[in-house]
């Protein structure tokens, strides 16, 4: 089990792990005390300047989250505005998941959450508390590539490689969902994943091969 010791703004570990709404309430309470303090005239005002208040507020905005990522449990303390994508890339150094737009329009950030494909840029990490996340780094079985990864290499389903993790995660889900029965269906259900290099026909061929090969995805 991994714990994020290096997080620069993590709260100290404590036994009374409060749910997010309680943390929020505590923040408000603390914050109003500070405001009252700030309203006091004299030297005290300067001491409790706004920066200090914001710093305290920031600490209280941390939310505890437990995620299982690629089979490994992570106990994290996060700002609620942290997206699953930024958590993976910036905090956990799982940079296989790519940022291409931050709007859920390109699919480069596609991961599986409890087996379903999601755009991790549109997903706040705190919303996934207790869930299982699979990223491209967790798809292969050790040194043995997943059949979809093999097929992408064989059919040259990429060029620059940047959209590739998202395409592969989406492709695996596409077959699992039962949406890979024809070229047209594959193209339709893969259209959330943009490949600017334009390797689309090769991606379709890779998906078809995996689907028709009957291997478990």
């Amino acid at each position: 089990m991994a714990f994020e010791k290096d997080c620069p703004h993590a709260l100290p570990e404590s036994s009374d792990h409060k749910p997010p709404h309680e943390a929020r309430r505590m923040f408000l309470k603390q914050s109003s005390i500070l405001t009252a303090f700030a309203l006091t005239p004299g030297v005290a005002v300067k001491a409790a300047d706004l920066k200090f208040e914001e710093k305290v507020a920031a600490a209280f905005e941390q939310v505890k989250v437990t995620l299982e990522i690629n089979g490994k449990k992570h106990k994290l303390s996060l700002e609620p505005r942290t997206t699953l994508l930024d958590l993976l890339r910036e905090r956990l150094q799982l940079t296989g998941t790519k940022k291409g737009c931050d709007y859920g329009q390109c699919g480069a950030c596609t991961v599986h959450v409890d087996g379903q494909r999601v755009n991790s840029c549109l997903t706040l990490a705190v919303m996934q508390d207790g869930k299982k996340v699979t990223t491209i780094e967790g798809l292969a079985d050790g040194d043995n590539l997943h059949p979809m990864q093999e097929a992408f290499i064989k059919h040259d389903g990429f060029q620059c490689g940047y959209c590739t993790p998202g395409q592969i995660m989406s492709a695996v889900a596409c077959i699992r969902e039962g949406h890979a029965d024809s070229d047209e269906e594959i193209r339709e259900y893969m259209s959330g994943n943009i490949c600017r290099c334009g390797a689309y026909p090769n991606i379709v061929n890779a998906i078809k091969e995996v689907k028709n090969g009957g291997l478990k995805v």
Partner: protein
Amino acid sequence: MKDYFFQDTIGKPMDRVDGRVKVTGAAKYSAEIELPNMAHGVLVGSTIAKGRIKNIDTKAAERAPGVLAVLHYQNAPKVPGYVQAAHPTEPKPIGQPHRVFYDDKVYFNDQPIALVLADTLERAHYAAKLVKASYEEEKHTTNFAKNTDKAILPTAAKRNPRHGLNDYVRGKEDAYKNEPLKIESEYVIPSEMHNPMELQAIVAHWEADDKLTVYDKTQAVIGTQNAFAREWKIPVENVKVIATYVGGAFGNGLHTWPHETAAIIGAKKLGRPVKLMLTREQMFTMVGYRPHAWQKVGMSATPDGKITAITHEAIGQTSSYEEFTESTLQQTRMMYTSPNVTTRYRILPLDISTPIWMRGPGEATGAFALESALDEMAHVLKIDPLEFRLKNYTERDPEKNLPWSTKFLKEAMLMGAEKIGWSNRPMQPGTLRDGEWQVGYGMGVGTFGAHRGRATVKATLYPDGKVVMQCATTDIGPGTGTAMVQIAADNLGVAPEQITFELGSSLFPPSPSQGGSATVASVGSAVRAASIALKQKLASMATGNADSGFRGAKFEDLTFQNGQVSLNNSPGTKLTYSDILKQQGLPELEVTEESKPGEERQKYSLYSYSVHFAEVKVHPLTGQARVTKMVSCADAGKIVNMKTAGNQMIGGAVGGIGMALTEGAVMDVRFGRYVTKDFAEYHVPVHADTPPVDVIFVDKPDFISTPMGTKGIGEIATIGVAPAIANAIFNATGKRVRELPITPDKLI
């Protein structure tokens, strides 16, 4: 040349050497480099297109949690290499790249005016929203169509009457005007954004006061190194540029941009590494684009289909501070046998950021007009457009009056026509149907100079038989590393699995930027030169050994294959490369070879060629146009890797589908700001837009172009695609659309 022709590997559809790292997510792109104590930078852009910053209020941002600094023109560390002038076009009339945080002037909307640095990405993004600026606004000029009368001849042409951007007249100027059988049409393309999937990103790290390392998304490792050395007035060798993996670029990595210098400024200020990744919106405003262009083509022909005159004029957009130019009219000068050709190229400076070459650059723009005009002329003449092109086929370059190095475009045209089923194309537009859908066929030709530059490769052979080659080129997606391994394998006589090609670092020997379809020609030739130099060293060691059976043998008497050298007339006399190194007690054998083009380029005219065929279906009620089949054919010399080259051709076709049907930046001329700023408004082709694409290579070597017989394919893959689709739509519907993209509203 004998050694080259083994070709065990060249031409084969080898899997990519970096396939595994790319499908497992292990490949690290610029923003994925993790350095200790790294800060995050987010840029704040101007909200006006032209004027002066009156005030920047950064107080709230500075107070926000985690913020380390907010930099702008008043407080940012000075960049010593900025040319000190009131306007970037002074004193150098051609202009200079935008000087970020130089002064209070605003030259384009969303110009970076502040950099927020914070300890986490979220905090940097949040604080960036708290920066408020007020402006003294000036009247901006951002409406291309209303200002074409202000277009100018590029300064480069004004200064040098022999420059290719000058007006060109072959035969009689504007001769089409007095001919009876003629067409005259205007064509417009909007600005298009490269939009590679990887957002432009940089990690900037000052390792010492005068020592800079950047992990940067670029197509020009050495160019970037030189640019930053100049900007910071530090020795070139003190700047290290790393671009191991580049997540697509299509041209926008061929220039250094404000965000790169901003991150370097930030790292200077903080004394810690700074990571800066643009947002998708910023990819539309500050890292170049294919410029909006207006074109006019006049063409005349004899009734039996001989072109008598072409006049092609173009105006391309540029910024107010840099003159960006491209070869929009080149294809018109050399492709067809017209005795009279006139071209005029102008640029229109607007209060918008500087464009940069986008795949197929100006040639793709020019080919849209020229190849559409060909189709229009053929229709007037009632001649099949393929036949019309063949009737005006050039066997010699009419512009330079030189023989082609090689040209197999005719073969490509015939192969492609057969494959698409050109015989199904109705001569009368709007007459072929598939149920409710109108069906049509169209073609477009593309060409691009078969360029080659100077490149150097270092090759090291180790006693275990492994070879490492290094060059400061990049791989933005075409599979450069893979192609280089294949070239090395055949030229060195070593299995590809034994060879590693390292790229993307300024520590490696120099290479030109990865642009203009020249990487295989430039770097591949250097790989070959280094391979031959290694073999020569091995040969002299083998033949110099007194006990050796090779004694006295000349280089030509030897065969190099499977990691061993043998005598041609006595194959049993052999030594592995490893044995030679071991005999000599060498831990490694190293060569560094430069390769450059020679005089052959003065004696011949060198181009790659493509021809694209499209089958489209148009729904008459909705105006929806779908490309249902594409055939793309390339005459680009010897193909090094059928799989990756085929993929590149498919990608060019997909890019062309976007250009033809969906892509276009929309400028709100009231504010001088694009309203298209993400993939919901700016539509790049997706899976559902992409039909099967058949790729055909003529695959005949051009040894005048390079010793491997190669020519580039990156640009020709997309040049000519958009007109093929536009022409197919005309054939399907009878509607000639001369302004891209061909959206449904233009077809109903």
